[in-house]
């Protein structure tokens, strides 16, 4: 096979565009939807979000008559409806980490930063696209989980609550918002740590290891500290009732969003300063 020079002449580009934040967002959208890990993570998150409340509703309904009055009184329909969020947050967080650490582990980051050498637009676009996609994909399943679990419980005439009841809509939508913010937080942790295993460990440590450790502290310390921890602040967004030592939904949202902003700010400074 012979190849002539004429055959491999590079076609000229008619017009060359400038790098804009919107174009970088389009790029990040293409990156996000073109990976299998994205589809699998969201599929797992959706199945858990809907499946777990359905399972718990069925179990609660079938055991209802064997429960003590006190046990029955401790059941709350929203706890059941939002049970899946507690687990699916892990799938969302892992994906949030991978969105950025996947670029470091494969070397893609070099191509990304060569295309956008000012760097920050890449971080903003990643966070924004991932947040929007997570909210859009998860709000449906979270709402569906509420209605499906209610329908199962309704079959046994127990634990009924209206979607329009005081605070219920807010709590259910808060569940989707919580998943969105946890994804952004995990993405920022990924950008800071730059290594998949390390970032997941850091995230899990902060959300699942440190909170129980606080129980070792004297109770009055624990009570005054733990409500300000990221996990408690985040949880306040989708709790129906807030007690003496938990933040209000708005307070929790503000604090958790603040943690996300802080993590993103640290990630931004490091992204600009460190060698890629």
């Amino acid at each position: 096979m012979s190849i002539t020079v004429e055959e491999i002449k590079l076609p000229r580009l008619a017009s060359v565009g400038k790098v804009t934040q919107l174009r970088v967002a389009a790029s990040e959208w293409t990156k996000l939807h073109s990976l299998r890990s994205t589809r699998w993570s969201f599929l797992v998150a959706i199945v858990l979000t809907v499946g777990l409340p359905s399972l718990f509703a069925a179990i609660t309904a079938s055991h209802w008559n064997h429960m003590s009055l006190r046990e029955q009184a401790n059941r709350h329909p929203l706890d059941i409806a939002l049970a899946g969020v507690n687990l699916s947050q892990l799938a969302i967080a892992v994906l949030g980490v991978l969105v950025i650490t996947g670029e470091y582990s494969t070397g893609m980051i070099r191509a990304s930063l060569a295309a956008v050498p000012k760097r920050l637009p890449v971080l903003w676009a990643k966070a924004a696209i991932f947040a929007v996609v997570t909210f859009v994909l998860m709000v449906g399943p979270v709402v569906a989980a509420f209605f499906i679990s209610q329908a199962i419980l309704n079959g046994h005439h127990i634990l009924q609550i209206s979607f329009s009841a005081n605070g219920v809509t807010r709590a259910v939508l808060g569940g989707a918002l919580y998943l969105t913010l946890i994804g952004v937080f995990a993405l920022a942790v990924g950008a800071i740590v730059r290594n998949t295993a390390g970032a997941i460990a850091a995230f899990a440590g902060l959300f699942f290891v440190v909170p129980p450790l606080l129980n070792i502290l004297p109770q009055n310390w624990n009570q005054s500290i733990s409500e300000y921890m990221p996990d408690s602040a985040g949880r306040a967004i989708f709790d129906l009732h807030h007690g003496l030592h938990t933040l209000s939904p708005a307070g929790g949202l503000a604090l958790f969003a603040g943690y996300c902003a802080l993590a993103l700010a640290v990630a931004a400074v490091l992204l600009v300063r460190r060698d890629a």
Partner: protein
Amino acid sequence: MIEAETLTKDYGAKRAVDGLSFTVRPGIVTGFLGPNGSGKSTTMRLILGLDAPSGGRVLVNGKRYRDHASPLHEVGALLEARSVHTGRSAQNHLLALAHTHGISRRRVADLIDLVGLHDVARRRAGKFSLGMGQRLGIATALLGDPATLLLDEPVNGLDPEGIHWIRNLLKGLAAEGRTVFVSSHLMAEMALTADHLIVIGRGRLIADTSVEDFVRRASGSVVRVRAPEATRLRDLLLGDGVAVSSPESGVLEVTGLTTDLVGETAAANAVVLHELTLVQASLEEAFMELTRDDVEYKAGVVAEPEEVAA
């Protein structure tokens, strides 16, 4: 056009690039040569702004790379280390990068055809062979129709047909007036492709010269003499600035003298010569000669365990 001014890069205590100054001009292929570990890849990362220099600066087409509004139109780069997400298809990889500059799908399709990846464009890049990976890297470099091309070891993993292809491509791109800067540790490859050479060793500039000058300068013209009385001839030839070695019995290799002078000395002393030739060093030998002291890791030497910098 690439202009480096006393470019320096330290990684901890180790100086990878040490006060490099050079200019890479448009319209020709410039080879960037050096042994492995001499700082070629680091220099390329500094040009692209992936790493920040510890000192000095490097400009591309008159500006720092990061200050360009359309970076991919200024520089197309193929880095030695792979820069592709293994889970993404070649097509989506190129599309994602194209989006950042508003480059069309049509262009992405054209480039996939140009590098011959049409049949595998929808396959995950992680499944690509080394050669296919290189072709995807080259397509990535050409995406923005760049004025300057920066290619780190582009023939790595390519088959002979692919090597021929890239040689023609590089020459064609230079002929269009682009700046083409190609690194290699293989001298022979550069001899066929490059017009100009920038040679570095241990991060320092060793030579900035045309290919012909490089050979002439480094070879120092060796004269090979075969004579029955080799030992007597050696004693006659030795003098200021003349070195004589004897690779085998009856053969001398003389540096510092022309063939004329060796012949005349032999005739004047009635020494019989069986052979008298000027040995032109190959580019490869010239390169070895120039970088001998600058090879970071030599074979046959047991290295002391290196202290790991924190």
